[in-house]
């Protein structure tokens, strides 16, 4: 009966109800998108960092990995010191450098990673073999396409140019032994990975026994924060960052998006609440006489309140359901825009649908719809019956 009356009341002003539902749906979509934005970056970044099982990153003091061109000197000594720290199970040294592939009209530039192929977390080999020989490398699809090269081809590679002698420096012939996907780079980045020793040797004295960062694995029963602190104590010239610390740093850098999400999400919630409140209040005001009649024939105050609150719930629920669909579509569109950031790793998603967070947000909107109906319905149900009936009859 209550549901029927509520439905009839909503259908009486079909265009108004439809518009209110649309308004709530847009608000719900916006709220959902902002929840997806606020949680998506954190989750996908955490998943990216945790993918290869490395829990600590070590970079030159005061810098973040690959944030500057600074390097860690005496790398072998530092690596040995890190292996001595309790709980550290693997240390992967990484050296980053720019290389030029010669033999084309203009040299093709790529990003090179010097790694230990046995302990590395920078790339995933898709085809071929690991670069275990000093003259071997694995390359990204983007670079292979730019070079029109294949596995087995030999590349003429240099790391620098001496303008006085007019010759390339650190020049070597390297064989492509595999095709790889670089986890922290975008699909369009031209990149190679080769043995650390080979890249260091190509860089001459400037890169001798130097690395850009170390990535460390710790034992499952060891708190990475404890190991991180121990590394900084043992090696004062480095900054060690746990995965949690890296996520916090990334969140700080991307805090603009998180705060934007929070502000717009809150505005959406308020707009949704105001819309339902306005509709229900106007609807109740129009039916003051009707409500007084219901009360006069013995319908309880609680029954009247329930009927009006059901209207609010109906509006919010339908709007939230529409908002769920609309929100997922708009999130995909907005995500495709933000995926255009240059150099963004493939695994990073800005909008991530997480059922728990999404349904909590939409639940909040429905609760606000319920709250929106309570006051006007209680006020209408509490009006003195006789005087209201008289006023309504006289007009």
């Amino acid at each position: 009966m209550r549901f029927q009356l509520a439905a009839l009341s909503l259908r009486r002003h079909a265009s108004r109800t439809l518009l209110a539902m649309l308004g709530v749906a847009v608000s719900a979509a916006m709220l959902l998108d902002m929840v997806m934005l606020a949680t998506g970056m954190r989750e996908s970044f955490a998943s990216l960092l945790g993918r290869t099982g490395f829990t600590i990153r070590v970079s030159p003091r005061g810098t973040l990995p690959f944030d500057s061109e600074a390097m860690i000197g005496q790398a072998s000594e530092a690596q040995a010191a890190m292996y001595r720290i309790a709980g550290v199970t693997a240390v992967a040294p990484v050296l980053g450098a720019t290389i030029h592939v010669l033999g084309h009209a203009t040299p093709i530039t790529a990003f090179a990673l010097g790694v230990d192929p046995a302990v590395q977390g920078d790339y995933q080999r898709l085809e071929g073999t690991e670069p275990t020989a000093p003259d071997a490398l694995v390359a990204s699809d983007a670079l292979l396409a730019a070079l029109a090269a294949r596995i087995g081809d030999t590349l003429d590679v240099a790391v620098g140019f001496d303008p006085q002698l007019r010759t390339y420096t650190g020049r070597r012939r390297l064989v492509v032994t595999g095709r790889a996907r670089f986890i922290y780079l975008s699909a369009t980045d031209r990149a190679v990975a080769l043995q650390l020793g080979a890249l260091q040797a190509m860089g001459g004295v400037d890169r001798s026994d130097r690395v850009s960062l170390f990535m460390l694995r710790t034992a499952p029963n060891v708190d990475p924060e404890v190991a991180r602190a121990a590394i900084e104590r043992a090696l004062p010239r480095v900054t060690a960052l746990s995965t949690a610390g890296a996520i916090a740093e990334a969140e700080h850098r991307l805090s603009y998006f998180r705060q934007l999400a929070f502000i717009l999400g809150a505005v959406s919630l308020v707009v949704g609440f105001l819309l339902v409140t306005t509709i229900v209040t106007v609807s109740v005001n129009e039916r003051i006489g009707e409500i007084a009649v219901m009360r006069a024939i013995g319908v309880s105050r609680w029954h009247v309140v329930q009927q009006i609150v059901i209207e609010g719930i109906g509006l919010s629920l339908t709007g939230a359901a529409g908002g769920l669909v609309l929100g997922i579509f708009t999130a995909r569109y907005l995500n495709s825009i933000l995926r255009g950031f240059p150099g963004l790793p493939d695994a990073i998603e800005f909008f991530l649908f997480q059922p728990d967070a999404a349904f909590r947000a939409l639940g909040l909107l429905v609760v606000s719809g319920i709250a929106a109906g309570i006051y006007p319905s209680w006020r209408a149900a509490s009006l003195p019956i006789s005087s209201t009936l008289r006023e309504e009859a006289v007009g």
Partner: protein
Amino acid sequence: MTERTIAIDERLATDAGLHVGDRVVVSAEPGSSTVDTVRIAAIVRGRADPAEVARSEYRVRVHLDQLQQLLAYGDRVDRFAMLTAQGPATDSALRWINSAAFGFRAYRSREIAVETSKTFLVVSRFHRAIGMITIVASATFLLCIMLLKVDERRRDVAAMRLMGISRQTVVQSVMLESSFVALLGSAFGVGLGFVTAALVNAHYQSVYRTPLRFAIITPETVGYSVLLSLLLGIGAGALAARRLARTPPLALFGR
């Protein structure tokens, strides 16, 4: 030998409690044997550069030869910036460098700006998309409110019609009222916008410690939002008023 000087950025000076005239020891790496004692000659404020806004690193300006020495970099530089007489002089300089200096590549500042501003183009596209969604949401809200507002006038409209006032006059008066409400709401919204923008700027300027302005309200923005709300107000008013004017007056009274 005269003492070398450096300039440090304002954030570093604040965080490290440094002042002009203080002497500091600088090195390329912690614990490095190549160190230099220098005097702080200036404290500079970073430019309002969006590219650096999320980077919290400190900046120190040193003399070129001093940095080369500290880094053991030899007689090398990363890049040159060149000032040319505009127009053909720039073209000929580019041609000469790119053909004569084997291994170098000269770019126009504009080309570099296009390359480095890609991030902001993405952010700008994102803002536009969010702006469109916000406009749709606020337009729906406004339309809803205006329809309700006009609907509330059903008894007044009925009285006007019974008094013999023409439908056209009724529609016009309701439209006038709704446009006045929309205009008043827009004025309040513009004021709220200015306050919000000031709060947003104050917040993000303190978070990122930058003079950069994050929210700017331009006359175009104000004009666009006022026009939009006015159009929606008039549209909603016209829609509801025509419906009311077509309904028989007694029906509007509920008889």
